[in-house]
């Protein structure tokens, strides 16, 4: 049998993501790249399409008769095709096979893709708050963050039990409207701190900006532009 052509590293990574063999951290990285790089996302989609016949080769089994009515009941009541426009912003973000970390990160990217809310320059700038919770059906708050526009600082408090998981550090990220995560520093379990922000970054903070905490090896994510570990908690800035 003839050898197929070698896959480029990027395509191999896309194929591996479509197949589902990547570790949770690599899956998160692949989801991040899909959100940031349409060519890479197209590569993943192409591989999903290539592999889909595997699924289609499975024997059909009719689902129970009661399933359709429950699907119909669960459809949103106010079907507004205009909503679909908003969904377009979510392109490719969650269709993938996501682990928890990847899902959280993709959620962060998606939230960050929402258009920034313009803050009136003349209005007294309010403090924005965020409760950072675990993902899943029963979110648990793990961190509380507040952005102080006067001091241009993020004040963050860890609700994690002091001394928990000494092998890792908790790294704080903000994801402004451009969708690119920025590392803000570490938050020790049980501690509070005020983290000064650059003027540009501070000015990009708005209602809806995502804030997340990832679990990283000591020293933080080796990639300064994205978390390497799972997202422990995530939230969005809001006015109280």
């Amino acid at each position, binding site marked *: *049998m*003839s*050898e*197929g*052509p*070698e*896959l480029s590293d990027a395509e*191999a990574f896309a*194929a*591996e993501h479509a*197949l*589902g*063999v*990547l*570790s*949770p951290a690599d899956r998160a990285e692949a989801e991040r790249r899909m959100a940031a790089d349409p060519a890479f996302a*197209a590569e993943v*989609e*192409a*591989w*999903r*399409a*290539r*592999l*889909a*016949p*595997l*699924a*289609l*080769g*499975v*024997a*059909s*089994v*009719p*689902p*129970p008769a009661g*399933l*359709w009515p*429950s*699907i*119909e009941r*669960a*459809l949103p009541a106010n*079907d*507004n*095709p205009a909503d*679909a426009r908003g*969904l*377009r912003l979510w*392109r*490719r973000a969650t*269709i*993938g*096979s*996501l*682990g*928890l970390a990847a*899902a959280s990160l993709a959620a962060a990217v998606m939230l960050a893709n929402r258009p920034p809310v313009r803050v009136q320059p003349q209005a007294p700038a309010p403090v924005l708050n965020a409760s950072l919770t675990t993902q899943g059906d029963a979110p648990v708050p793990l961190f509380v963050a507040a952005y102080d526009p006067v001091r241009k600082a993020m004040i963050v408090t860890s609700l994690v039990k002091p001394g928990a998981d000494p092998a890792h550090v908790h790294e704080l990220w903000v994801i402004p409207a451009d969708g690119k995560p920025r590392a803000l520093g570490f938050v020790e379990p049980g501690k509070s701190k005020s983290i000064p922000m650059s003027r540009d970054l501070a000015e990009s903070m708005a209602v809806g900006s995502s804030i997340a905490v990832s679990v990283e090896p000591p020293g933080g994510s080796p990639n300064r532009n994205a978390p390497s570990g799972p997202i422990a908690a995530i939230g969005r800035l809001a006015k109280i």
Partner: protein
Amino acid sequence: MSRVAAGDRAALRDLYDATSAKLFGVCLRILSSKEESEDVLQEVYLTIWRRADRFDAARAGVLAWIATIARNRAIDRLRSRGPTAYAEPIEDYEFPDAGPGAEALVEAADETRRLQGCLSELDDRTQALIRTAYFGGVTYEALALRMDAPLGTVKSWIRRGLAKLKGCLER
């Protein structure tokens, strides 16, 4: 699909009637649990409903697109069960029968035959690895443990297999 994207419930119902048995089979194959498969199948059609506007006919057939949604949702569910979900042994090498209802899915059957033909050109071990990964959501690390082989070796088996698969599909 464009009718579904426009919010036409009857269109979603038609799609459900035509494809739910296939997708339920996919969920069952991955999850081996009727209850969980029903949950996931429901999520799948709600996802299709919300995302139909994103379907791109130039990129994939409708069936391939929705089968991928079903497979990925089922794998997500499998992974959420935790590490015990990965305790199953490496797959047998055989393809399951296409089963009843497949006649209606002629295009899918063609694509499946084609992929099956290309997979059969791979050695048995690589075929089994690819099928195990696809239906089990099994990572490189877990595959290496199961095969008792170095991670790098398993990785290169799969990468080579995928490259050959692509070459074959493009012939």
